[in-house]
């Protein structure tokens, strides 16, 4: 029976069983392969030979490749998994591995390389960047192929002695859930003969038969030695085909190096690699059925490229061939596959070969687009170079296509679900796929589109169910069912766009079937009527609450889906509940029982679309770019933007987040101006800069909108002014950190504070007016801003980011901009902070009202310290030149004025350099994955350089952005991915390492424990004449905590000694700002899921590690105390 799984699991299931050593490092979208392997190893699962593979998480992909090289040279079967930049970091080793004819497989979930922008989505630009390494390259196009070819790759690698890069499309295949017929251990054994494994071992480095490998060669022989490997490449394709045949005999699934499907005598053929081949096949089938003479070729083995096999595969009748590449090689005469094919077939004089690009960064290739490619070949003069899937109004390269051409199977169920991140929608859909897809005679496919936002993200699930196998690697175009799990989505997203006429729509609605119509936006009403949709409503939120499930509506919606779509899944749901929700079993079963009773169809007959049109997504006063580009992205219509709409070099305007009113929070803080003591703590801790304060002269509030609150200033130097605190109710995420930190309580009712939460919707309109009025009020910066109370009056230049609700990192970033935003340049390592800081559609880095503001850039993950150092060098070099020119030209006073009217080259040069005379505050910002692991050597070098660069490490103690993998900052006893059995090594003491250089200002801070110390550390770090390092405790969703209590966790971390607060200035020594731990570490460990869960999975090691951790807390405190003592001596 086929099992439902995604491509990553399909690869890992073979890779794990056939490896002895696995070196891993997280990178999207390949991380799950390593995570699964780690999880299996932690539960003692064995490989084909009865051993648990040795797993090691490395500090970077470069490190993983090195470890892999070593393990292979040591005679083990070893593997790794990676993607994108990770693959690039492995590049040097790949040349070595191939040069040494090393048998191994590297599994690649192919993803875009960062160029003008980073993208986590899929294309072949990473794989194509390593095509010259000499590794074999095998492409899989479906989840089943991933599973099968993971084995073929290793078998061929062992027999043919080449390292094999096994490539499949990131997300589209790595994350698609599809049926897989699993290979048995016998299948694996059959293709991996022991003599080949022995031969691999015998080639290992060993003192018993010593050899030298990796010599340095000279002009006399290097060339010849390089050519000596030719026979291995020549025989590889035949050998691979023979293995494919053997696998086919065992499993019935036959594969060819080049696989043709279509008319026996085609005149037109399109070829590609990866998942798109399925669309080409399907489209070719449809066109052949319609009488056209077309076909398609799937390329599986790309390297070594076998011209002979291609020649054999491509029917001679073909007169026009289009070769599609999912990558872009700017400046080349064509993309890689095209070039190879053109070269291989150049003897076919009558064959016209065109090259096209498609699908960059997971852009869809739909049957309509595929058809456009076939149609292009029919033209008298086909476009020789083209793109498909976009509208290119700059170079005119794109093919037009007719989006109405679709090939969905008519009798299938095609369901699209709109959910809110973490609301259970995706989880329920994954279970639906398993429930239905593992029934005999039913085929299923699931694919999930996630948001680029971390807070309030929406998800769209695409589920297909049918009687025939469905390899459709594109989103559902004509849905028979649309589930809308959040009523608010009706206003924000084109939720009915994919519904086909007559489709069923299920809406989670607080309104009954009789009431709901008037609450629907007119656009939705119109679409419902025009498409004659069947609308059902269910108060899933109400049912879930009644059933005792809180806000989790997934069970209710899933039950309704099965009932309305006619799929037989009720028993499956119940079984799933028994297995997955032991604690909420009864509540979930009650929800199943109640769901249908509360579902009702809305009568659409006689309805007319009426009501107010939705407000435009961004107001008219927004800048043109925001209105014309950003707003389109926000409306999820970015696919429609033409090439000309986008900047060619990746440069975007700042401050766009303020135009995106997300209205995420159900509840927002409301200010009680009678209780407030104006301490400014709420403003400091707000992760989204959604609560701000100003001091203004009273006359400015004379025309304040109704209800705009203020109170008498409590600032000694401004006694006559009014203080106002305002909440951006449409931008607030409702995290409650501000309420939690508020110290001002009602003396006779301690639960009442100066900030309390209230329902957002009734406050929305007024709140918007108040906020707009507030933003226009002037604010003189305070004369000094060393206290938290004064900081609140500083304007932030980092606002409304897409970080998680209650994020622990962003308050530090915001503080940086408040203190130094006027003159900051920020180098941001890849990670959470680069994503919430730079992910489209809108970005939080913004300008101050002076027009100045931080300039921000993300170079890479590994090079951030060096990148910042480069920025420092440039700033210094330009300032030095400017000063020299000022001196040379003999200028004084207002330089800009003095330069007016001067037209000599040096004056012009100086004019351009004038800004560089303003001081620059250079910051390297990033997470612990960067600072502790992958970027550590760069950081070390930055410290050694003595350059004045400030480093802010947002330490969440885990790789947060990629989903919680352990870093060297992960503490002892914490459970993380890659540390499923609890981290057994103590957290690296990065601060101490920096202190020991004796040249770096170092501070460790935790805003929730001591905000004054945090502000002081930032000030001191920036003022220090050399490098500085601030390590900031950042509570995180990956800690398994209530994020609304994150600041308490920070306090507890300090009180228990888990986190020390200190400041070290090389000139004056160490100041320990933490008291000796007053509470046992146990209290902290027991308050976070990441530690608690170890007790449940590995109770013995949990107890041991907790004890060890307590001991280390004591020792570390003593170590730092000793350092303080040595200073006073």
């Amino acid at each position, binding site marked *: 029976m086929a099992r439902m799984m995604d491509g990553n699991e399909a690869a890992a299931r073979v890779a794990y069983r056939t490896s002895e050593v696995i070196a891993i490092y997280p990178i999207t979208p390949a991380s799950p392969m390593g*995570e699964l392997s780690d*999880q299996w190893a932690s539960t003692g699962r064995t490989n084909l030979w009865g051993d648990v593979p040795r797993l090691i998480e490395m500090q970077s992909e470069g490190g993983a490749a090195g470890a892999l090289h070593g393990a292979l040279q040591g005679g083990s079967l070893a593997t790794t998994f990676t993607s994108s930049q990770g693959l690039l970091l492995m590049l040097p080793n790949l040349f070595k591995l191939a040069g040494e004819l090393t048998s191994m497989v590297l599994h690649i979930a192919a993803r875009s390389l960062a160029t003008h922008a980073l993208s*986590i*989505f899929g294309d072949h630009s990473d794989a194509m960047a390593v095509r010259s390494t000499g590794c074999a390259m095998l492409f899989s196009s479906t989840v089943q192929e991933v599973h099968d070819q993971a084995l073929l790759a290793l078998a061929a690698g062992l027999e043919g002695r080449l390292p094999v890069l096994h490539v499949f499309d990131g997300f589209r295949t790595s994350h698609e859930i599809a049926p897989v017929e699993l290979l048995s251990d016998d299948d694996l054994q059959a293709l991996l003969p022991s003599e080949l494994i022995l031969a691999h071992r015998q080639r290992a480095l060993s003192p018993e038969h010593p050899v030298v490998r990796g010599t340095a060669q000279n002009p006399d022989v290097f060339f010849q030695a390089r050519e000596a490997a030719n026979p291995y490449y020549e025989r590889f394709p035949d050998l691979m085909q023979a293995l494919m045949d053997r696998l086919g005999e065992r499993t019935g699934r036959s594969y060819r190096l080049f696989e043709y499907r279509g008319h026996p005598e085609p005149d037109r053929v399109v070829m590609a690699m990866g998942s798109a081949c399925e669309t080409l096949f399907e489209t070719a089938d449809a066109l052949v059925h319609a009488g056209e003479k077309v076909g398609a070729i799937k390329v599986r083995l790309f390297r070594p490229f076998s011209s002979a096999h291609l020649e054999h595969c491509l029917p001679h009748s073909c007169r026009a061939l289009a070769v599609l590449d999912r990558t872009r090689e700017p400046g080349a005469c064509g993309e890689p596959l095209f070039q190879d094919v053109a070269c291989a077939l150049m003897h076919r004089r009558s064959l016209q070969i065109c090259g096209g690009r498609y699908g960059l960064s997971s852009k869809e290739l739909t049957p309509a687009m595929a058809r456009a490619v076939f149609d292009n070949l029919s033209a008298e003069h086909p476009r020789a170079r083209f793109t498909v899937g976009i509208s290119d109004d700059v170079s005119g390269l794109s093919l037009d296509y007719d989006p109405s051409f679709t090939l969905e199977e008519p009798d299938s169920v095609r369901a699209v679900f709109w959910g809110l991140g973490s609301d259970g*929608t995706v*989880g329920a859909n994954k279970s639906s796929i398993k429930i239905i897809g593992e029934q005999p005679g039913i085929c299923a496919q699931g694919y999930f589109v996630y948001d680029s936002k971390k807070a309030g993200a929406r998800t769209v699930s695409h589920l297909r169910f049918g009687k025939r196998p469905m390899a459709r690697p594109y989103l559902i175009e004509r849905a028979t069912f649309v589930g809308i799990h959040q009523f608010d989505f009706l206003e924000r997203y084109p939720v009915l766009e994919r519904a086909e006429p007559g489709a069923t729509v299920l809406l989670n609605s607080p309104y009954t079937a009789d009431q709901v119509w008037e609450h629907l936006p007119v656009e939705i009403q119109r679409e419902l009527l025009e498409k004659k949709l069947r609308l059902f409503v269910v108060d899933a939120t109400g049912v879930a609450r009644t059933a005792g499930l809180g806000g*989790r509506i997934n069970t209710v919606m899933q039950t309704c889906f099965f009932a309305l779509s006619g799929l037989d899944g009720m028993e499956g749901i119940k079984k799933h509940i028994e297995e997955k929700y032991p*604690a909420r079993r009864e509540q979930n079963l009650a929800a199943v029982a109640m769901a249908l009773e509360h579902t009702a169809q809305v009568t659409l007959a006689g309805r007319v679309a009426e009501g107010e049109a939705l407000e435009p997504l961004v107001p008219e006063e927004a800048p043109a770019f925001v209105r014309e580009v950003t707003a389109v992205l926000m409306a999820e219509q970015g696919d429609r933007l033409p090439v000309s709409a986008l900047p060619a070099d990746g440069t975007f305007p700042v401050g766009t987040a303020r135009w995106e009113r997300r209205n995420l929070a159900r509840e927002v803080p409301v200010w009680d101006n009678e209780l407030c003591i104006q301490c400014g703590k709420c403003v400091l801790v707000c992760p989204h800069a959604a609560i701000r304060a100003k001091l203004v002269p009273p006359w400015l509030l004379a025309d304040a909108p109704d209800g705009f609150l203020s109170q008498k200033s409590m600032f000694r130097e401004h006694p006559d002014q009014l203080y106002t605190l305002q909440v951006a109710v449409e931008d607030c995420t409702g995290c409650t950190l501000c309420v939690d930190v508020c110290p001002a309580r009602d003396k006779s009712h301690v639960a009442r504070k100066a900030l309390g939460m209230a329902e957002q919707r009734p406050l929305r309109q007024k709140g918007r007016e108040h906020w707009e009025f507030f933003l226009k009020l002037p604010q003189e910066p305070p004369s000094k801003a060393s206290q938290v109370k004064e900081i609140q009056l500083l304007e932030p230049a980092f606002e409304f980011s897409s970080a998680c609700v209650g994020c622990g990192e962003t308050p530090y970033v915001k503080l940086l901009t408040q203190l130094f935003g006027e003159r900051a340049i920020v180098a941001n390592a890849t990670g959470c902070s680069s994503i919430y800081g730079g992910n489209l559609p809108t970005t939080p880095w913004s300008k101050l009202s002076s027009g100045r503001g931080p300039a921000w850039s993300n170079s890479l993950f590994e090079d951030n310290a060096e990148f910042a150092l480069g920025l420092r060098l440039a700033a210094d070099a330009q300032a030095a030149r400017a000063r020299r020119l000022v001196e040379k030209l003999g200028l004084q006073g207002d330089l800009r004025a003095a330069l007016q009217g001067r037209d000599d080259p040096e004056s012009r040069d100086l004019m351009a350099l004038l800004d560089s005379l303003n001081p620059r505050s250079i910051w390297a910002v990033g997470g612990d994955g960067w600072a502790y692991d992958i970027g550590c050597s760069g950081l070390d070098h930055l410290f050694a350089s003595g350059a004045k660069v400030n480093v802010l490490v947002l330490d969440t103690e885990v790789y*947060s952005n990629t989903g919680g993998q352990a870093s060297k900052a992960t503490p002892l006893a914490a459970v993380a991915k890659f540390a499923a059995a609890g981290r057994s090594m103590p957290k690296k003491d990065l601060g101490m390492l920096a202190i020991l250089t004796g040249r770096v200002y170092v501070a460790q801070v935790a805003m929730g424990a001591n905000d004054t110390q945090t502000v002081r550390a930032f000030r001191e770090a920036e003022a220090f004449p050399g490098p500085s390092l601030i390590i900031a405790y950042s509570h995180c969703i990956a800690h398994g905590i209530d994020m609304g209590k994150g600041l308490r966790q920070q306090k507890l971390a300090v009180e228990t000694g888990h986190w020390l607060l200190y400041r070290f200035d090389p000139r004056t020594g160490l100041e320990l700002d933490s008291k000796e731990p007053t509470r046992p570490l146990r209290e902290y460990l027991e308050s976070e899921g990441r530690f608690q869960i170890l007790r*449940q999975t590995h109770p013995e090691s949990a107890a041991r590690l907790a004890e060890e951790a307590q001991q280390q807390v004591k020792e570390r405190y003593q170590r730092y105390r000793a350092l303080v003592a040595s200073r006073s001596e």
Partner: protein
Amino acid sequence: MTLEHPLIPSASPLTSSLDGLKRLEDAGAPAVVLASLFEEQVDLQHELAESIRHQGAEAYAEAVSYFPPLREYRVQADEYLELVEGARRRLGIPVIASLNGCTSGGWVGYASRLERAGAHALELNLYHLAADPERSGAEVEQRYLEIVQGVRQQIHIPLAVKLGPQLSSPVHFVRQLEKAGASAVVIWNRFYQCNLDLEQLEVVPHLELSRSYEMLSALTWTAVMFARVGLDLAVTGGAHTVEDVLKALMAGASAVQMASELLLHGPERLSQLVLELGHWMREREYLSVEQLKGSMSQQRVAEPAVYLRANYLRTLQYGGERWRG
């Protein structure tokens, strides 16, 4: 259940590990009451696993989850069953498991699992603060009885019920418990009260070890119940000295449970108390604990009324004089 002597270590951190239990046995404990498995633990741990599974999951493409999948995890209840099994294997004395809860939820099902794991007896700790204004005392007590009946139906081993002091008619209620299938009652449960943090203006949990004077209420009610109810009585909460133990026995207790004193001075204190008990009895020529038991219960003292209002009046009278100076 026949025991070597009546001093039983009650549920406490000392009885939560095999090592602690072994130390108690070595110190001469005649039986041990294991630290309680709480109803909330059973539920909360499943919920922790679920929240770990769901928090932030399936929202953002790079991080569709934040923790390794928890396909196989153990809840504390599993550990507890292992503790019972381990205690049963390692100890030569009776092992009394302890369940603490106050609803009729799924946790009750653990009773039979504890019996299967080898517990010689079960202590059911009905820890409940009756704060619901809509629910009468009678309703609360009715629910207790239902829980006891539910547990009794599942197990065949002796069942002791540990009660709190807030009952309108304790003797009557204990008789009801007897009918519901309880074999013994343990009085009184100590309610861990909250405290107020004047700095943070927050309510904080508060735990203090017992003192001898806290035993007096249990002493009174043991004396009143003795021979009026058919089940065994045990006193808990406040027994620190041999005098405390003697008083409890003389009031009518068959056993005296002890935790604070052992936490303060270590398990070895138990052997000392047993020696002192023996010494006291020998000195005064008592032949057995049986002889002591109930010797000063209400029915066996010269003035039974002293246990009731008569003593109250006396206290007012003499106490008043004492503080008048």
